[in-house]
């Protein structure tokens, strides 16, 4: 963990700390939204799904606040080096986390549409994928809070698992709909959920890459190439 020495101007420290707190808050809300959406999907709990959909507005509002605070801090403090990278990372992460929240909302919106169908119950892979994607978001946010580049690296490694499950599910879904054309609507919804989860994994990776960039000034993607 990289401990940062304080700035001579302590108000700058407070501003940076506020922004970091907002990013952590956003991340926790987005991660919880995805988890709650998948739980509502499994239990067909439409009321819980509605709470997830409504909660997305709070994530959007924090993103707007982060954007305003970052622009303000850049304009007023003229940050350099790791401070500048920290702020750029916060700005990019806020946009990425907002998208994770959107995917959670999208999944929650499909809860009612899948009512009465049986294929989902037999498909644990979708929930395993959600667990991994959620874990990736949690790890990315922990890496951010701890400034931990090793944990950031570990997030990127896990993305391959999510991608592979999505590919496998795609094949399974297509095979299923070929045999059972009347399930096409359910399969279309499930395919969208699988794609949403795959994108959540991608965005968790993006967050981890921003953590790595803010701490090192280097691109984590370059390291993996």
């Amino acid at each position, binding site marked *: 963990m990289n401990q940062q*020495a*304080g*700035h*001579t*101007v302590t108000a*700058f420290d407070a501003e940076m700390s506020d922004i970091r707190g907002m990013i952590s808050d956003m991340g926790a809300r987005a991660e919880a939204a995805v988890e709650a959406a998948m739980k509502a999907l499994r239990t067909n709990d439409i009321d819980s799904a509605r709470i997830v959909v409504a909660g997305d507005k709070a994530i959007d509002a924090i993103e707007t606040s982060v954007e305003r605070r970052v622009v303000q801090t850049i304009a007023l403090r*003229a*940050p*350099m*080096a*790791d*401070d*500048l*990278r920290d702020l750029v990372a916060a700005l990019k992460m806020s946009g990425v986390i907002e998208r994770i929240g959107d995917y959670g909302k999208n999944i929650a919106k499909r809860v009612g549409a899948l009512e009465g169908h049986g294929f989902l119950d037999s498909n644990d892979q979708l929930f395993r994928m959600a667990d991994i994607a959620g874990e990736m978001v949690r790890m990315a946010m922990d890496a951010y809070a701890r400034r931990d580049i090793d944990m950031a690296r570990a997030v990127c490694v896990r993305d391959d698992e999510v991608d592979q499950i999505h590919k496998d599910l795609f094949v399974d879904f297509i095979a299923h709909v070929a045999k059972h054309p009347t399930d096409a609507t359910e399969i279309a919804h499930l395919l969208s959920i699988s794609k949403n989860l795959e994108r959540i994994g991608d965005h968790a990776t993006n967050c981890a890459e921003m953590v790595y960039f803010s701490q*090192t*000034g280097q691109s984590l993607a370059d390291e993996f190439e």
Partner: protein
Amino acid sequence: MTDNDATNDPRARVARQTGGASSAADGPFQATGMADPKMSARGVNVFYGAKQAINDVSIDVGMDNVVAFIGPSGCGKSTFLRTLNRMNDTIPSARVEGDIRLDGEDIYAARMDVVQLRARVGMVFQKPNPFPKSIFDNVAYGPRIHGLAAGKTELDEIVERSLQRAGLWNEVKDRLTDSGTALSGGQQQRLCIARAIAVDPEVILMDEPCSALDPIATAKIEELIHALRGQYAIVIVTHNMQQAARVSQRTAFFHLGTLVEYGATSDIFTNPRQEKTKDYITGRYG
């Protein structure tokens, strides 16, 4: 010291100390080793009496880049700048050790004409210091004493060209006989730059040239530095890190008389390699 005296040549001494041809090549950053430096310093130490102000600084300055020296007050950046045209010779207690070369020529060699050196390596100071003479005479002074103009026509051309290069011609062309001290602070500083340019220098040293100027006058000087880049090797000392970031392509960070880091300005201000540099430019220096 003769040019071929390997025994006493600080270049050779530094090379022996580090086991290589370049003093900083083995260190955490590359301050030397430029293919064709306009100026090069090796193993430079400066003392004011018993107090050492500069400690073993080696650095190359090229023609293509504006170099900014940054660092906290008392770090030695102005002292080192002043070694580059022997301005420290004017301070009785100052003593300079090491090797500083202009186009490969030892500027501290006994045969070096210091007046000629300061024409080749001009200087612009923190506070504008025009002579109490007309605008024309301020610029014409150097060419006259160095015999650079064959006659009045040529002198007129030099004055006009210098004022144009300094971005001041259009503002003063109709009042060249007015006193230089009657100009605004920003105009006076550009007049001083025109005065330095008039003797056709190869290097221009600027010691906090904008610290006494308002933001508009500062912007004009910065634009001028940008325009002059490539025509002269330019070294600027500044406390304003935003200014260093705006005008320079290479930045050197000094701390307690030591050159801590020297590199591309874009790297120094986004991803410095040395912890001390980072602490200073991010405002964590205590």
